[in-house]
Structure formats: structure tokens, C-alpha cells
């Protein structure tokens, strides 16, 4: 049984096992990750009436996605992993979207994009070697304006474009499970930020008292 977390869009938590989604709880709030994360994990455990110690791994979507929220899910996943002494399986949130869309559509090449604000898109291009194969990254992940994106993918041939505003933790969990069983590779510990930190110097917050 794997606990899966993705906070690259809203906050999504799921438990998967043997290719099945056992439960998923979501918060669509794009700013409330820190508030939602604990309750969603607890809700998944209690709806299945299982104890945390029954989990064998934690899977987490490493983005790309807005940084502040993205980090909440990753921080939760790594600390859950340490608490239980189980591995943390890190995957691309875009690959999870690709896997989810493939099962219903079955195309060979897919361009996944998500909102990066400031009129830019995060994007990754995948191909599926066969009908039940895992998505393979062919281009990206990257961050571009729509115009730049058109140029970047112009040599990609025929593909289906998936613009998604949501990443399901169940897909993250199912992808991780399949990567684990096929000996596929996982991502490293740095989130897919794709954008350098904006340099603003911290200042004293506006006073609220008196």
C-alpha cells in the first residue's frame, strides 16, 4: 500500500495498492495547501481504517507547479517517509497526468501543460511506446509563454495536448507503483522548480496590531 501526495495544483492525497486506487481526498483550494495537508492524509487513513504503519512507501509529485504549495506536499511526504522508515518515491506530476489521460485516450504522444502564472505554461512532452506502457519523457519539463511553447514543440510531430488544472495523487501513486515494479527511475530530491527564485529581500511584515 502506498500513500500518494500531490500539491502541484491543489492538494491531493490518495492510497493505492496493486494498481487500484483505494481512496483519494482532495482540496481544490490553490492556496490552502498547508491548511489541508494533514486533514487529507488523516481522512485517507481513517476512511480505509488503516494505520500509517501499514503503508510501504510514500509517493509524491515533484511538480512542476507553484512553489509554495508544491513544497508543502513534498515536505509532508519526506517527513512521513522518515516517520515510518519507508522509501519516498518522487515522480513528475506531469507524468502522472499523462498516465491518467492515456488510459482513457491511448494516444502515442502527449503534451501536458499546467498553469505557471504570468502568462506562462509548465509543459512536458511524453510518448507511450505501446498501449499499456508508461509515459516516456521526450521533451521538457520546461516553462514557456504560449508562443515559445509552439516553437519548442513544432518538431514533435502529431501529439495530443492536455492542459490540466489538476493533478490527482492517485495517478502519482499508480505511476510510482508501476515504476517500482518495472525498475523505472524516480526523480531526485529537488522539486521541478524550473524558475529561479525571485529575488526580493524579506522585510518586516505589515503591522496588524495596535
Amino acid at each position: 500500500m502506498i500513500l500518494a501526495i500531490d500539491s502541484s495544483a491543489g492538494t491531493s492525497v490518495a492510497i493505492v495498492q496493486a494498481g487500484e486506487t483505494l481512496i483519494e481526498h482532495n482540496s481544490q483550494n490553490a492556496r490552502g495547501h498547508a491548511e489541508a495537508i494533514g486533514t487529507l492524509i488523516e481522512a485517507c487513513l481513517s476512511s480505509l481504517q488503516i494505520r500509517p504503519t501499514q503503508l510501504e512507501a510514500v509517493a509524491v509529485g515533484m511538480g512542476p507547479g507553484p512553489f509554495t504549495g508544491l513544497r508543502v506536499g513534498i515536505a509532508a511526504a519526506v517527513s512521513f517517509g522518515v516517520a515510518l522508515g519507508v522509501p519516498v518515491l518522487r515522480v513528475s506530476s506531469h507524468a502522472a497526468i499523462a498516465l491518467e489521460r492515456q488510459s482513457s485516450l491511448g494516444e502515442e504522444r502527449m503534451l501536458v501543460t499546467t498553469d505557471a502564472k504570468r502568462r506562462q505554461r509548465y509543459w512536458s512532452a511524453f510518448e507511450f511506446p505501446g498501449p499499456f506502457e508508461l509515459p516516456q519523457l521526450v521533451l521538457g519539463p520546461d516553462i514557456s509563454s504560449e508562443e515559445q511553447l509552439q516553437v519548442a514543440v513544432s518538431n514533435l510531430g502529431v501529439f495530443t495536448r492536455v492542459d490540466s488544472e489538476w493533478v490527482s495523487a492517485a495517478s502519482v501513486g499508480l505511476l510510482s507503483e508501476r515504476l517500482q515494479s518495472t525498475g523505472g527511475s524516480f526523480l531526485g530530491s529537488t522539486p521541478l522548480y524550473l524558475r529561479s527564485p525571485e529575488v526580493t529581500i524579506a522585510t518586516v511584515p505589515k503591522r496588524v496590531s495596535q
Partner: protein
Amino acid sequence: MGSIVNREAPLVLGIETSCDETGIGIVRGRSLLANVIASSMEEHARFGGVVPEIAARAHLEAFVPTLEESLRKSNVALADLDAIAVTSGPGLAGALMVGIGAAKALAVALDKPIYAVNHLVGHVGADVLTGDSIEYPTIALLVSGGHTSLLLVRDLVSDVELLGETIDDAAGEAFDKVSRLLGLGYPGGPRIDEAAAGADENAIAFPRGLSKPKDLQNHRFDFSFSGLKTAVARHVESSDLTHLGSIAASFREAVVDVLLTKALAACSELNVPRLLLGGGVVANARLRQEAIRRCKDARIELRIPPLDLCTDNGAMIAALGAQLIMAGREPSELTFGADSTLPVTQIQDLS
């Protein structure tokens, strides 16, 4: 979530990520078992101040190694903990959220209660770990790069009042900005100390912010350092830097003077003969030296916790969590978030 087993001397893990230090501490009741701090200070050096996004990224990177080192040092297993405590504010929102996400997952995974606590009150709570902690009420002066606050603490877990705070820059921030003006680098505190060594601190009469009678009416215990920073800038423009040492020393003196004058005025006006210092600026030797001298003259009991309990750290958060548990407080709900302007009156963030 789990309920409290041990209210006598609870074993608490504290997580602090409100600014640029990833701090994890472990305490048992009033005893310090571990206090591990990873700082991203060097990554901010070339910008001359804390960059929030860089700090938040560094927290995520440092979290697990810092946690593991704290467990190793204290020889504590996570399963033995009675509770998790975490800073929920005030501080940098994105930085706070890393600690909150990690803390909540630990609490659920381990089935332990969680206490969301106030960072500033945590600085006061650090004192209980020193063995012979201060009596209440006390005045607390908390000075760092992120805050400059004067508190009246009647009771650590139930009654903390904000007397005043900075209306512009934090004192530590003023040190950083002036250090940059003088070409001395980051962090400003130690650099200005080096430059000021042996120089005349009364060479230049820099202004003391919010100290004129008309300012005192509305800002009795508030601080302002932006005017001082401007005065130093003007001085630098209109003179050469051959007397850099005395500029640094005179600037530092102005900061130290205004901090301690207001803190001691609070002690005397509120009839509280005790002063506690906290925050990273306490590392400044001149501030400590002057505090000792003036408190002795005014017959005020002065408390300065060891430096690694003064800078932002997880042990102070654990200590405050333990105090709340020992006072019979219930845990926070799992629904709390980061509150970058959490008022000091809210010692525990319940939901």
C-alpha cells in the same frame, strides 16, 4: 490524532522554519536534549538580506538531515515523542509552510498531537531550558533580522502583551543595510562589530528613532530604524570612509541605545524588574555588554539565554510546546495554516 500521555515532562520535538534557519529541537519538559540548526545565511549573502524563496527552498533541503541529526544527538526515537510543536507564525509564509507541512505529516504518521505555536513567544520560551529560568512578569526584548519587539510577559502560556515593535525595519535588517552601505558585507551584525572594534562609539551623533517627546506619545515602546539608516547614508555621502570604524561604532551605539532605553523604560514604567533578551541580534557583544551595565545600574534582573537558544531554533519551539502541554492545554487542530503576522497574544494557534 494521539492524545497526551505525559503531562509531567513531555518529550516534544519542535520545528522552526519562519526565516532562514531550519531548526529542530527536542526537549523533555524543561530539559534540552537536542538543538540542531541549519542556516541558509550564506545563500542570501550576495543579496544583502534574506530572500524568502531561497530560504523556503533551503528549508525543504535541510529538513530531513536536520531532523535525523536531532534524533541522533538526543538518542530519541520518533515513536517515543509525546507531541510535535511547530512555528505557525509570525514569519515568512512560504518558509513557515515547509515546517507546517512536515510537522503535520509527522503528527499523522506517528499518531501524535500537534501544537502550532507563536515564534516570538518561542523566543521567550527558550529561557525555560536554561535551568534557572526567569520569574514572571518579565519584559522581553526580541531583536533579530525579522523582528524587533518589546513584550510584557505575565505568563508564558497565557498572558503575553505586545508593548511595541518596529514600525519599519527590524534592527537586524538595519545592521544588514548599513553594513552594505559601508561595503562591509553580510550578515551586517558581525561585520559591523569587526569594523567598530576599538573605535569611538560617540564620534557621530546619529539619531535615536521615535525618541522625541512627540513620537513618544504615540510610539512609547515602538522602534524605527529607517531614519537612522538614512542618516548613515547621508553621512557616508558627505564624507570619506577613512573613519569607517567610528561610523560603524556610532551606528551600532544608536541601535543599542534606543533598544535598551526603551526596554528599560518599559521595566521601570510597568514596574517589572526583569528583562529577557532574545533573537539573533543578541549575538552582538556591544548589546549584551550595555544591557549588563544598564540593568545592573537600574537593579533589573537580566536574562540572556545561550546564543544558540537566542537565534531562531527548534528547541525554543519544543520548549513552548512542552510548557503548553504541562499547563494542560489541548493540541491544535490539524487545520491551522501559516500566519505571517500572528499576534503575540496568540501563543498557540488552535486551528
